């Protein structure tokens, strides 16, 4: 194995079993653990091997574009890529026998799962939500849904039906939270994939044979599970929507605790938030308000489409949304002054540039494409346009973006509090694009709606009073 080979390995839920497989295979990887501080790993057994850790979802893309020869990820993410880009040069080599799960299209049903026809009969536009938007769209086309909208989500899809979506494509077990499977979409497990070019031209045999003996007997690749045979004939309950109730979206994740503090300061009691059981519908003691917990990243779009009247998210996500949809009805109502971060442009420390202008000049001189990696695709796109980066491409990522520099991207648009993570990965900040804090956002149409306007103003005022004085400290 003279030539350098590159392998992309997953962080997150597949990590422990992948680590144990590679340990048995004798790769001798140092530091392939959860919470690893360095995403670049060396193998004691294969000195020419470069291993990098990615969010599982980024792996098929990184292998397809040829940045990595081999990768390990769930079949679900491979199929999600192939559903949209069927010409991607990827070869699925084999199943690895762990990380098993299934994707289901679920809906809310009373007893039996509702049929697609029953759902279609209820609404003009079927709303589908998922972390797997391409597979959701393929499902809609295959099932000839007349009119549909697919909302890509960062998470919490199971919390959407029935009031915020008719169908959700989710990984895991159906039956939870009164969700009925309308259709099985895919059985998946961890699999080993290769770039087609590498597979045809490079000698990967040593790596492959080191893995082979430690794998369960060869299995036939699992194909997308066929649609359920038993007829799903249940009816589709349409939730009663009270036109006066204000629907408020609360954040999960890091923003939960400052949101909680603010609410209690404002005297708004909320039961089961944050929830220890994963309940996404906390009970509010604020009259005329219903609450649901979703990802802050998904909130601006969900407010814009009218699923929520109000939401608590970050300015960063509102900005990203407004750059994609400049005339969106999602608008900022109040700066909540918590969860302060800077949105910054980041390059490798090795790069001899100190500003975006210098970066532009360097890449123009070398006639190179600037690869911009970010979770904020629309902020990145606008930043690249505004700075005339010339030939550039935006690579959407799902976390651990620092790992992309310098090999797999040239510029990151990231958020940071202290800058220490950036410094630790041998990166430097060349510009602060803007500062972001938590915001109360609302739908302009709801604010103009006489049935809701007064209540929205009241809630905004309660929160404003809770903020001052004394103001919450900046940062953490």
């Amino acid at each position, binding site marked *: 194995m003279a030539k350098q080979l590159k392998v992309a390995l997953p962080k997150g839920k597949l990590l422990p079993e992948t680590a144990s497989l590679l340990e048995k295979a004798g790769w001798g990887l140092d530091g392939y653990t959860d919470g690893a501080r360095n995403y670049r790993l060396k193998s004691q057994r294969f000195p020419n091997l470069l291993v990098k850790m990615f969010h599982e979802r980024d792996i098929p893309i990184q292998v397809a574009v040829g940045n990595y020869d081999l990768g390990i990820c769930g079949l679900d993410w491979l199929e999600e890529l192939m559903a949209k880009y*069927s*010409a991607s040069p990827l070869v699925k080599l084999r199943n690895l026998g762990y990380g098993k799960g299934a994707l289901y299209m679920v809906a809310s049903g009373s007893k039996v799962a509702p049929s697609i026809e029953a759902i279609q009969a209820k609404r003009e*536009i079927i*709303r589908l939500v998922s972390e797997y938007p391409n597979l959701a769209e*393929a499902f*809609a*086309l*295959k099932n*000839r*849904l*007349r*009119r*549909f*909208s*697919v*909302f890509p989500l960062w998470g919490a899809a199971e919390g959407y039906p029935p009031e915020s979506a008719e169908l959700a494509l989710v990984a895991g077990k159906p039956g939870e939270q009164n969700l009925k499977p309308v259709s099985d979409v895919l059985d998946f497990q961890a699999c080993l994939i290769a770039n087609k070019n590498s597979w045809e031209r490079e000698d990967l045999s040593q790596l492959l044979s080191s893995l082979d003996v430690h794998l369960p007997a060869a299995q036939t690749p699992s194909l997308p599970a066929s649609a359920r045979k038993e007829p799903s004939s249940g009816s589709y309950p349409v939730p009663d929507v009270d036109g006066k109730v204000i629907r408020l979206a609360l954040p999960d994740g890091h923003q939960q605790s400052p949101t909680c503090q603010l609410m209690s300061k404002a005297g708004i009691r909320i039961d089961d938030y944050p929830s220890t059981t994963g309940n996404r519908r906390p009970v509010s003691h604020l009259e005329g308000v219903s609450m649901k917990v979703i990802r802050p990243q998904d909130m601006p*779009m969900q407010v*814009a*489409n009218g699923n929520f009247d109000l939401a608590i998210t970050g300015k960063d996500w509102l900005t990203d*949304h407004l750059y*994609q*949809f*400049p*005339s*969106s*009805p*999602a608008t900022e109502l109040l700066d909540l002054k918590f969860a302060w971060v800077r949105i910054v442009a980041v390059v490798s420390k090795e790069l001899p540039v100190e500003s975006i202008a210098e970066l532009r000049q360097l890449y123009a001189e070398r*006639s*190179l*494409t600037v690869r911009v990696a970010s979770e904020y695709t629309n902020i990145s796109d606008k930043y690249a346009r505004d700075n005339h980066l010339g*030939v550039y491409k935006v690579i959407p990522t799902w976390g651990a973006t620092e790992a992309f520099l310098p090999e797999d991207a040239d510029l990151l648009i990231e958020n940071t509090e202290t800058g220490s993570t950036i410094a630790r990965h041998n990166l430097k900040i060349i510009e602060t694009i803007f500062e972001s804090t938590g915001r109360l956002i609302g739908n302009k149409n709801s604010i103009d709606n006489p049935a809701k306007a007064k209540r929205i103003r009241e809630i905004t005022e309660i929160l404003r009073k809770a903020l001052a004085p004394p103001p919450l400290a900046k940062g953490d």
Partner: protein
Amino acid sequence: MGVQRAKGTQDLSPEDMRKFRLIEGVFRDCCLKWGYEEVRTPTLEYLHLFTSTGTLTPSRLGKVYSFLDWDGWSGERVVLRPDGTIPIARLYIEALSARKLAKLFYVTNVFSFEETGKESREKWQCGVELIGAGSTVAEVELVLLALGVLKQLGLQNVELRLSHADLIRALLAKFGLSPEEQHKIYDRLLDGDEAVLAMTKSERPELGSTHSTSSGQALATLLEMKGKSSGFLKNLKALFNGESSELEPALSNFIDTVELLESVGVDYHIDLTSGRGFEYYTGLMFKLLIDGEQIGGGGRYDHLIPLMGGKQTPASGFALYLDHLMKSTKVGTLAGPQAQKILIRAESGAGLKGAFKLAATLHEAGHNAEVGLGAQPPANYKWLLDVRDKAPHFVLTDRSKRKKFEAQTAKEVLKLLG
């Protein structure tokens, strides 16, 4: 990294555009003479226009260019027009449905993803839609109009292949296939997948055998049969005598159309599986080929307008593929006498004003005149017209006859040009 056009797209050079406009001109001319009116629909449409059952097949939907518009927060996508007919049906429902009869034509581009690189992802077509007429007369008129355009373009060896969507559906229904299976086979036939019959035979051997109907015909064999006259269809009808109630309407309609075509002297082949069609077709489907390459096609689509929310309205139409026609059409066979081009050259900066004034006068009089930019080779022009500061103010040279004429005024120049 050089400057390059996007993958799967093409440029039309001046030579290409000459051909393009010629074909477009012949097409427009023919349509206007038959009493059709030109329309143009937007490049962007809502995706949902195309997703309903009976519009585009899922495999074609998997190749549309769809995206969220700048105000697409509701999640509804727009598409770059993937088809010519559906937007016309939308236009009819939205703005023209008060008319009993709408005879419309258009020249438009359609977009569809294509991986092989052999074809462009943006294709041009000349389309005709006849909305509000359900008779065989309408079908025959469309066939004659299409053939007329091809004849005007000087194209020979045009082959007309006929099929019938309802007849195929009725045959599929007759052979005990589940509705889902019928739908699948039909979609694949329409997508031009000629292997589908062979595959159906191997997966469902009973469909290839002769025992699948009481009268002993095999579905695949029936679909594969080809004929050259209405007699063929009458034979087919006789074959199903007694059990042809489901086939009757489709067969009778097909026979009527074919007989009328025969009576006006149109040559055709009947080939039920001659693929490439649209899911929205209901009756006659036709394909036009030159040397085996399809250059156009059309058919009846009576269900499309009601399916899209309009009233029950019979309709049919066809499209000619401009990109394919451009390959077969020779400009020389069509172009009239070359215009007598004039090059106006100013002797000095002061003469430029006179040159531009003269150019305007010549243009108004219908001449083809260019002002010299210092880079036009005189050999490309019949006339050279020098604008001088002193008398004589204009010197006109006839390059082919090697003769020079002098003139003092623009009027005299016009006279000399004749």
